[in-house]
């Protein structure tokens, strides 16, 4: 699946077909994401690639959660591509990473989504079970 990865995307761990870790950097000089590396966690279901993988940002000592109006501070990403309706089996880890990279690149607002605090505090669902409303077509 992986030949040569695009710039700014590094495969960290792909030992099995359940969980992969990928590091993503924003290459273009966007001041919000300068000098930071974000770690993405892919969790594949048995139905992949028919079903979308579960993709979240993970936080650790060296990898923060990027600021973006569609990324909650617990790492959950609101992106139609990762939802069942928006997913297409032709996507793969690389294309998802590139999409997220460009989503970050084009962002100009250093903020969290509306209601981030409440969502982060009260959400117990897995990302795939959350019904996102996809309202913003600019990203």
């Amino acid at each position, binding site marked *: 699946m992986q030949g040569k990865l695009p710039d700014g995307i590094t495969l960290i761990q792909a030992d099995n077909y359940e969980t992969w870790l990928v590091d993503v950097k924003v290459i273009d000089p966007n001041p919000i994401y300068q000098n930071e590396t974000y770690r993405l966690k892919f969790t594949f279901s048995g139905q992949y690639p*028919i079903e979308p993988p579960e993709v979240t940002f993970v936080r650790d000592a060296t990898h923060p959660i990027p600021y973006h109006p569609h990324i909650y501070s617990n790492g959950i990403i609101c992106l139609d591509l990762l939802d069942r309706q928006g997913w297409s089996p032709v996507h*793969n880890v690389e294309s998802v990473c590139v999409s997220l990279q460009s989503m970050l690149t084009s962002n100009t607002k250093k903020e969290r989504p509306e209601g981030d605090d409440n969502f982060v505090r009260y959400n117990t669902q897995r990302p795939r079970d959350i019904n996102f409303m996809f309202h913003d077509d600019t990203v």
Partner: protein
Amino acid sequence: MSAPSPIPPPNDRRNSRASSSASLPLQTPDDVAAEPGELRMVGGPPNSPSPLALRVSNSPSSKRRRSRIVKVPPEFQALEYVSTPDSNLVCLICHAPFDKPVQLPCEHYFCHDCLEHAWAPQSAGRKTCPTCRLKIEIDRDVKPVPKIVESMLDELVVRCSNSKAGCDWVDHRVNVHDHVMLYCEYTPVECPVSDCRLHIAQKDYHKGCLHYTVSCEDCHASLMRKDLEEHQRGICANRLTSCTLCDAELLRLDLRAHVSNDCPRHVISCQGATIGCKYRQERSDVLLHETTCAMATMAPHFREQQARIERNEARMEPLARKVGILEDGLSNITSMLYPANSNDASFPVTDPLDPNDTEPTTDFSLPPASFPPVAQGTESPQAQPPFDSQVHHLLTLHDSLREEVSRITNAMTELEGRANMMVFNESTRAKEDMLRTNTAINSMRMQLHWLMSSHLHNRTNSAGSSSARTTGNTSATAGGSNVTQSASARPGPSGALQMPFRRLSDSTRQDTKL
């Protein structure tokens, strides 16, 4: 096409999605039905059926598969391709070369099955192309791919799906189905024994059920009968084998050690390779070469020296660490002594006259007001840089501190003497005072005695005179009143004379108290 090798396959249990259409009776049902009992006599253990066979015979589904040779057709997605297939021939969904490809109106190609899977979650009227999301009508829009694409796919070179079991067949993909289903001797088929559900390679079919445990006579490992031959030929560590290089006969166990240490045909490098000898030949030649090679003779010495260097480096490391710790301690001490100049500890310049720099002086000249000259004296040598080294500086500092301490000690003894003198003077003065007071008290006591005695004398005189007149009075109080009466009764004196007498009687009482 198939190259049968005598190696039996390992137990290949594919998670079989057995398709009934793929069954292929090689023998007539009559033959198979007649065979099992006889085969068990041949292949099985002499007395009892194997425990495995017994266990299997109890399972309810064993009846279902009787005497049918069921083969699993190869899955194209799991096939191993000899060369990496052209990325244009790869399905974007399964990332394998197309299997039964179809074409959508947007000219995107997918495997037929992949597309079905991808469309399964989408509702009936809303199928879209997975790549470009073009709306698709299944009946109208899904078309077969051009012939040329199909033939390109057919000509991809693949290995047999049983290659892990030992088949080394390699050919065009279009033939793999026929090969596996008809010709391949390694295709797993169901065991001919009716109550055994395990699989066996087709070439071993005629041997009957080989699914019972035996133990290898050489290494005593227990394994299935069908794996025994391969085990003995390729795995068992206690069997004789021959070195592939030098034809020496030895146990497989020792083969690796033989090759790396002894085998005369094994290609090794000269011992001097570490220091530059390029000679690399079979071991026998290298041994000859090493007798003449200068580098090979030098190599042990080099190794020894290298080891010594490493030992010394390892020893140096803790020493360096210790030095670091000591330096840290030193700088700590320096910065403690010169808090203001802690960043320049080796060059302390403390001006005692500088009002901003009073802290160090207050540190070790307490109290500052009492020894101003002393504090200045100790500070002035320190204010004269530069010193040769930090150690030298510290030593001078230490000396000056010691001097100062002795000076302070002297001053303290002096002070103590002065204080003692003062206390002594004060106490003598107090003593003299006390003596004077004592003498005064004594004289007063003398006067009192005199007064008392005179008074008593008076009373006895008056009592002697009045006893003749009043005889019945015996009580002391009565006696007391008698005194006043007698005093007042005395002839001559007026009322003014009465008062001193009374006072006198009072003072007698006080005197007794004293």
